[in-house]
């Protein structure tokens, strides 16, 4: 190990180590004492929390599997009106976080809500409220999360369908398969690893979801963690609950990793790939394909966007009273610095791993990228626990003044936790760019007289420019939408669009939540549109 010691190795080691520390804190806190709240909860709500989490998880998985896979299948294999539009239109669902979807759903279907107004305008006064279905509670959470997250299944499944060679389909036909049998025996099984990978991401996000379930007052493990800290001030119990939730998530993480590895086998090599011919659907089939895709597009994007837009126009005073410039600057400030730090450190860490080629460092990196699987609530609380421990046990023992104020309720702390949370996203994004640079390219550079630093600056960075831009956009998108970390760690009087929307909604001022939500959707949509060509990229195109 030590013969590899150089500046790149040490940088990479240090970066991975920073990311791992809070994760380890959660595990180490498991055995600490808790308040009575633990006993109360263990005997009363723990079962309910777990059951709710499982019901939510299972339902969202079934729902996202159906809409994600069917829509991916339709746009990958068939040509019908607007099929090219839906190809990228369906990923706009990422612009709407589950909690904003939840606000829209409630706003539309609640008593005297938008649905009522529409009916009243169409048919005059009437007692429509009793006929309008109510999508709240568990059902509302399931719908909100599913329409917001199905994009993971859609993107990965579509990519897998695209890489399916025409040869594979021709072979299936040659064996006498057609129609549904071709789909169920050849097409779907060969995309299985991608579907599982997509569903695993959905599962992790669902278990970590805070905004929507909190809005609908559904008690899950994640809201339990938040409440045990906010309401009962019991950090140790919050950590214990986190540990319990992490067991679920790590099982999913392992499943996702295994299926991702297998997914490699489904990418055809250059030589064996034959471009698929899209099938032109007849009028009847094309109509239903169009209806299905439009329904998904409408429900996942147009519906929440229109609802938020409608309220913003209907209650313009909310727009006028909101400090939009301030919120915008805060959001941009946070996004810019977090993304910049994430990109720089992930780039250095990736290069450090590449030049060191050290097993220990590889294991450390693998552990460090598990941060993405850990819900924001848990990370934020683990971070506070860690800072508190350093402060109490080390800083105060040395007789120094407290460091809490630098990390808790500060921009620095917020950026640091964002760094830990989204490090894997940045690290993996850059890594996939690096995988396209043959190791012989580095060696050729050395042999042409380039030092390691010069190889990094003159060869790698220019080549990875597009990957870095894409990673920057992805990370920005996540940070704009992120809620629990910002809620827990933001400085006093520092609000973003997400936190403003949450605060208004939690005070039952849904109309006021519409304006920041609308801005959030618009900014996120712009980011998605810029990066759509990377998200939907197809190496064979």
């Amino acid at each position: 190990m030590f013969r590899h010691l150089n500046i790149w190795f040490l940088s990479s080691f240090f970066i991975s180590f920073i990311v791992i520390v809070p994760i380890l804190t959660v595990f180490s806190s498991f055995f600490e004492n808790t308040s009575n709240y633990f006993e109360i909860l263990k005997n009363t709500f723990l079962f309910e929390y777990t059951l709710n989490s499982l019901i939510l998880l299972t339902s969202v998985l079934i729902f996202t599997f159906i809409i994600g896979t069917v829509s991916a299948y339709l746009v990958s294999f068939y040509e019908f009106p607007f099929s090219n539009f839906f190809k990228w239109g369906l990923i706009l669902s990422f612009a709407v976080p589950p909690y904003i979807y939840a606000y829209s759903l409630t706003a539309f279907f609640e008593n005297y809500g938008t649905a009522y107004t529409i009916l009243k305008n169409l048919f005059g006064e009437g007692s429509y409220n009793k006929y309008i279905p109510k999508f709240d509670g568990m059902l509302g959470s399931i719908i909100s999360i599913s329409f917001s997250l199905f994009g993971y299944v859609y993107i990965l499944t579509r990519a897998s369908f695209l890489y399916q060679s025409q040869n594979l389909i021709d072979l299936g036909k040659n064996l006498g398969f057609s129609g549904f049998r071709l789909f169920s025996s050849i097409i779907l099984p060969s995309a299985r690893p991608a579907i599982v990978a997509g569903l695993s991401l959905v599962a992790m996000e669902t278990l970590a979801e805070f905004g929507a379930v909190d809005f609908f007052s559904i008690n899950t493990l994640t809201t339990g963690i938040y409440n045990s800290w906010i309401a009962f001030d019991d950090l140790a119990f919050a950590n214990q609950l986190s540990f319990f939730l992490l067991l679920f998530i790590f099982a999913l993480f392992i499943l996702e990793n295994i299926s991702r590895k297998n997914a490699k086998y489904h990418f055809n090599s250059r030589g064996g790939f034959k471009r698929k011919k899209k099938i032109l659907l007849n009028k009847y089939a094309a109509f239903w394909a169009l209806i299905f895709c439009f329904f998904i597009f409408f429900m996942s994007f147009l519906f929440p966007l229109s609802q938020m837009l409608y309220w913003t126009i209907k209650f313009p005073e909310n727009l006028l009273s909101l400090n939009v410039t301030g919120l915008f600057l805060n959001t941009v400030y946070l996004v810019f610095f977090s993304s910049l730090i994430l990109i720089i450190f992930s780039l250095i860490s990736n290069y450090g791993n590449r030049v060191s080629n050290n097993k220990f460092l590889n294991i450390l990196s693998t552990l460090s990228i598990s941060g993405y699987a850990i819900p924001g609530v848990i990370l934020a609380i683990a971070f506070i626990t860690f800072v508190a421990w350093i402060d109490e046990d080390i800083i105060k023992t040395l007789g120094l003044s407290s460091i809490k104020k630098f990390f808790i309720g500060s921009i620095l702390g917020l950026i640091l936790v964002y760094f830990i949370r989204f490090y894997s996203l940045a690290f993996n994004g850059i890594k996939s760019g690096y995988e396209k640079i043959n190791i012989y390219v580095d060696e050729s550079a050395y042999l042409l007289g380039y030092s390691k630093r010069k190889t990094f600056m003159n060869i790698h960075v220019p080549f990875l420019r597009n990957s870095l831009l894409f990673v920057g956009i992805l990370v920005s998108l996540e940070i704009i939408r992120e809620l629990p970390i910002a809620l827990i760690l933001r400085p006093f009087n520092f609000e973003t669009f997400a936190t403003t929307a949450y605060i208004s909604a939690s005070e039952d001022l849904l109309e006021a939540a519409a304006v920041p939500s609308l801005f959030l959707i618009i900014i996120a949509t712009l980011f998605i549109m810029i990066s759509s060509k990377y998200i939907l990229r197809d190496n064979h195109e």
Partner: protein
Amino acid sequence: MSKNFFEIKDVNFAIGGKEKVKNVNIYIEKEGDIICLLGPSGIGKTTILRTIAGLEKINKGQITLKDKIISSDKIHIEPEKRNIALSFQENSLFPHYTVEKNIRLGEKKISSDKNINFKDIINILNLNNVLNKYPHQISAGESQRASLARSLISEPDLLLLDEPLSNVDQSFKEDIQVELKKILKQKKISTIIVTHDSYEAFYLGNKCALILENEVKQFDDPYNVYHFPNSIEVVNFLNRGILLPAKVTGGDTLENDDLGIIKGKFIKHYPTGSEVRLLLQPEDLEHDDDSNLQLEVVDRKFRGTNFIYTLKTQSNLLIPVAVHTHHWEQHEIHEKFGIKRPIQLEHIVCF
């Protein structure tokens, strides 16, 4: 210090902690000479090149270039400071630069005595049409040639080529071999070439090192490697002859049960009466339709200038014999084929 321009002395070559080739002793006597490393796939030829380039370290022996130790158990000069160019078998062009930019990256900032011209190299390697393209837009053969051009233009003290023409079309390969040899000799660029093509090695190399069974079995000039292989392993690797059981009957004769008396000059002394295995290569035997030694034809391979007949002896041994394709009578399978007697060999190689 070494009297040779480049020398590998008692070096064990390893990659990823796994020893590949042991106790290697090879050298380039004077600047501008070429040596070829021949051996089966996976034996460690590329590892040797990578180590010479400084991409792998050694823990035994030493490697010297121009009287300077570049690798030993204590010294390791970094690759970028060796002035050694390595042209990889795999695509190693920088993906975000055009072919021209890739090649020009190799150009020396200060001109040296070798004075290798960009245009000459491009013409020789026929790269004019791809200069403005990016690596992903060109064929494997073209990217291999571009990589070779970049290495050449860097005017290295030592050039290392790993299967440099393995992806190049056959029709074009021989022309490039001729031009490559010419430029290497003209510009006095000392070169080590890894190849599995023995004909390429025999043509390009001043010396050839045969790497078999984790060691250099023979390091000699191409003529000697071919005609005087020093071990059965070398004979088997070159696959250009068979070993026949024979008994030494005198100072310049031996006898085989099927072929009778064979005369020639022994390259090594064997006492009369010794049981040996005689190396018989396709060009050793002469065809004679009128001979009383007639063997059955079991196979005939057309090799352009020659037919290689495989003949079966009475004791079921299979012997290869080369016959010029302009020989008026072709022999079909199962027909008889006459061998000229007495059999007279240029030299006798036995084991």
